[in-house]
Structures are given as C-alpha cells and as structure tokens.
C-alpha cells in the first residue's frame, strides 16, 4: 500500500514515497498518487500527464530491478521536480541503457508486459530536464524536471 507520508492538503509541496523492489502488486500506485496530487494542485493537464508517465517508468524500474527505492516529489511555481533514488545493482553502461529497446528484463518481467527497453528513453523524452547517475552494486539516481506553467493558481 502507499505509505502515508504527508497530510493530503494542497498547501504542501514536498512528498516522499517508498517503493518496494519486486512488488508488482503495488507497482504504479505511487505514480497514480502523484498524478492525483498534481491534478489537485491545478497543474495543466499535459504537465500532470508527463509527470505521471516519468514517475511510472521510474517506479517500474525500481520494482523491476532494485531492492527498494524512493521517489520525492517537489512542486514549485516553476516546476515539478521528481527525484528518484534506489538501492540495487546499478547500471554499468548508462548510454546503452538509454537506447530504445535495450533491456535486461527477465522473462517474467517480459510476460507482464514490461521490459521493452523504453523506460529511460521515455523518461528522457517526457522530461524537460533529466539527469541520471549510477554506481554498480549500489544503485541509481534520477532527477526529472517538468516545467509547470501555472495557469491560475499560485502554488506558494
């Protein structure tokens, strides 16, 4: 289940979610929660959508490959900032991992419909800014920034 971290009020702009590696039953729930939060805050539809997609890909990667991970969401007047960190095998060759179609997914993961090798590629595509770093046998960190142009609401 999604860990309750912060009070679900629109005044808060920082959220943190833990993700359990290997748990495909709950995989995706954090992304859905983040989408709901951003929608509640009145962010434009395409910003909400892009943020939800990058979160989802990041969340699935953690569940597929890591032991555990964390997704932090920060909403500022300018941006949606998503920071992801996991503990896991890490990525030996980031450039290769970014290639569409490159995947180290197991047969089990493929049968679930994942492992097409588009995750990092999609994250990069939907983010306005994307940084990734990784250490083999330690884990991987991602930082995605999606520009949010608030239409009516002051987010502060």
């Amino acid at each position, binding site marked *: 289940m999604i860990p309750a971290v912060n009070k679900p009020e629109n005044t808060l702009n920082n959220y943190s979610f833990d993700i359990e590696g290997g748990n495909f039953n709950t995989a995706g729930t954090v992304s859905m929660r983040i989408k709901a939060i951003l929608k509640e805050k009145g962010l434009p539809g395409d910003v909400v959508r892009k943020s939800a997609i990058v979160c989802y890909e990041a969340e699935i990667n953690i569940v597929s490959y890591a032991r555990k991970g964390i997704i932090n969401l920060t909403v500022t007047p300018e941006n949606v900032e998503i920071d992801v960190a996991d503990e896991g095998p890490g990525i030996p060759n980031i450039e290769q991992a970014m290639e569409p*179609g490159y995947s180290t997914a197991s047969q089990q993961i*493929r*049968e679930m*419909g994942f492992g*097409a090798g588009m995750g990092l590629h999609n994250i990069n595509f939907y983010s306005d800014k994307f940084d990734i770093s990784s250490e083999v046998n330690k884990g991987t960190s991602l930082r995605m920034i999606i520009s949010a142009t608030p239409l009516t609401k002051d987010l502060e």
Partner: protein
Amino acid sequence: MNIATIAKELNLKVISASDRIENNNVKGGYTGDLLSDVMANSHEGDIWITRQVHQNIVAIATLKEHAAVVLVNSCEPAKDTLEKAIQENVPLLISDLSAFELTGRIYNLLKTEK
C-alpha cells in the same frame, strides 16, 4: 493475397527473405507481443504484427510457419534478430504505422480479397 502485395499496398520495408514474399500467401493475421500467447494462438500462414524485436520472434515465426513478421512503430530488429531471419529465410518487414493502424489496414485488405 501474398506478402508482396501487402508490402506494396502499405509501404512496408522488406529487410529479409525478399525472395519469399511473392510465394508466401497470407491466410490471416495475428497481432501481439507476448511470445507465449503468439505461440499458443497464432496460425500457419498468419502475418504476425508485433513490436517485439528480439531474436525469439524468428524462432516463433518459423515454428508457426507464419507468412511474415511485420515490426510496427518503425521498430528496427535487434542485430541478431535480422541475422537469424536471413539465416532462416523468414520474411521480416518494417512499418512506420502503429499496430492498430497497420492491423486495421491489413485486415481490410484481406477482407476485400474474399
């Protein structure tokens, strides 16, 4: 209707076994990406529409005697997939259409033939 006709009508790029496309007749179609499902449910003479690019698709196409395999979304096959397709003489084609669009068009081509 043979693969060559479908390839011409729908602007498909033939990347292996081009010598077979005139002879391979299409009896039906199968669209899907889950290999075990394709193994279980597709038929001989099917044109298989997928975005799976790894070399197992050649083995499946051979075992099930598909007329051809078409990769959608402009997906390029993995290098060993192409090599295997050439080796096994399995027609491999690429389409820039999405699976839904390509399936719809092939379905209707086959229907108008009947």
